[in-house]
């Protein structure tokens, strides 16, 4: 420890850490500041120039947000993102909880093999599924519709949610299930009165992961909703603005911030569950 202090004094340590933290934050700060600046300022001066007179409030405006929300479709896209994400989070978690319970606490032939198949499907790249599903969707008129993308996201989310909830539910004490059986509880009663309430922490993590995953998804939306403006979620709308308004940074930054606002809110308000959920979900393919 003494040697460490000689080679690497505390002040250097603090400087390095704070330096890294600044590098990590600056790009996002730049985005946020720019989204509140006047278009003519954004085009001609760097965002850091606001800090030479930070309390001159005439240099800030909410106009960019108004423009992207009303004129560039970000308001509609925000609502679309909600319409897509809420069912695409609720259904996979519910269905996965049912299956995880059966895999963990019921005996049936092929149980282990089937569960292995589910785990193996975790890492199938989604690219493997796009063309055949798109053909089915076109045939059933499901492409460009909310039910279509709900089905896709629900299915894609299942391997991970089954796997994570199984890990948790299988770890519940056996005695609980034995006494429920002695009391004459049916499997449904056991599921809703015992398994679900006891699994709340695991379910919270999985819900947050699936929610953030779907909210931030670009690829799946591009495949199944691409080209249908009226149902486009935020990610799709921002990506298309990058293409069409590539130099209007005051609009792009405001639009990007609109798309990031809800995940950031969840991050700051539910940080512990958020981190746990992201870590748990990292095995997703």
């Amino acid at each position, binding site marked *: 420890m003494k040697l460490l202090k000689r080679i690497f004094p505390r002040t250097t340590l603090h400087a390095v850490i704070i330096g890294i933290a600044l590098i990590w*934050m600056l790009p996002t700060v*730049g985005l946020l500041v720019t989204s509140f600046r006047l278009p003519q300022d954004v085009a001609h001066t760097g965002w*850091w120039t606001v800090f030479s007179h930070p309390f001159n409030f005439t240099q800030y405006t909410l106009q960019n947000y108004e423009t992207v929300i009303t004129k560039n479709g970000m308001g509609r896209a925000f609502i679309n993102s909600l319409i897509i994400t809420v069912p695409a989070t609720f259904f996979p978690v519910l269905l996965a909880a049912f*299956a995880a319970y059966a895999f963990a606490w019921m005996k049936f032939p092929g149980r282990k093999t089937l569960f292995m*198949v589910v785990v193996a499907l975790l890492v199938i790249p989604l690219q493997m599924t796009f063309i055949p*599903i798109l053909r089915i969707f076109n045939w059933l008129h499901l492409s460009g519709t909310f039910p279509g993308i709900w089905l896709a996201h629900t299915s894609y989310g299942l391997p991970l949610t089954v796997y994570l909830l199984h890990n948790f539910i299988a770890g519940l004490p056996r005695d609980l299930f034995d006494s429920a059986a002695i009391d004459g509880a049916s499997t449904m009663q056991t599921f809703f009165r015992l398994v679900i309430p006891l699994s709340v922490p695991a379910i919270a993590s999985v819900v947050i992961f699936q929610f953030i995953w779907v909210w931030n998804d670009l690829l799946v939306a*591009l495949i199944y909703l691409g080209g249908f403006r009226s149902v486009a979620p935020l990610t799709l709308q*921002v990506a298309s603005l990058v293409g069409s308004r590539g130099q209007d*940074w005051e609009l792009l930054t405001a639009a990007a911030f609109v798309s990031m606002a809800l995940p950031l809110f969840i991050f700051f308000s539910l940080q512990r569950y958020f981190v746990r959920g992201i870590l748990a979900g990292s095995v997703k*393919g």
Partner: protein
Amino acid sequence: MRTNRLTPWLYIAPVLFLLGLFLLYPSIETFRISFFGPSSKDFVGFANYIYAFTNPVMVSAFRNNALWVVVFTSFTVGFGLILAVLLDRVKYEKIIKSLIFIPMAISFVGAGVIWKFVYAYRPPGAPQIGLLNEIVTALGGKPIGWLITRPWVNNLCLIFVGIWIWTGFCMVILSAAYKNIPRELMEAARIDGANEWQVFWRVIIPLLKPTVAVVATTMVVFVLKVFDIVYVMTNGNYSTEVVANRMYKEMFAWSNYGHASAIAIVLLILIIPMMIINIRRFREQEATR
């Protein structure tokens, strides 16, 4: 538990149905149509695979993905590890960790916009609006077109966006593992005369190896499929193409389902080793239950 033979199947039926329809069947079908022409009508043998491995843009996509795997994985894991060890020594550890983890909440599209702005270019003489070129010109350099200077500068600029997003993730996992190492082990090494450098390489690294392996596997799986960052920032132009973006173009822009399927299969084959590692890990967990 009171169950009849049918009960378990009722619980797993919806999941099995959806997985079969949306993952299993399409995978098999994709394999089949990878041997057929653009509209899946005429059998073409291995022609699509030959295309996938010889087309110049595909070759450069593979090269770029390889660059992503090497640079992205070593930096996220290495940087995450260094941060985990350094932050353990300061009192304000938590707040810095949250700051570095924040990018994980942002979509890749959002991150793409953030960094495209950092990399923004204005010709020499004009005031720079991108942070990076402002720094370069302030130091007396000429502004650089970060995203169009091929092939190293722009690819590394894209990879850095990935590193910015995922370092926090690696840091959090490695930090948890680091805090699990008994302090006495490090103290004992120090008492035996080891300096901090030796403690890091001879005590910390060997003990963290299993965790590092897990994190690195996760990073490789992610990076083989990297798509959003490239799609938003360059769309694969200026020699920045990657395999997943190329597959998207083959499918949507050119409707060549044969090419697109073959590329998807190649992606799968690259990921299979990771899948085997995952299953093995799961088996070990199951064995200890």
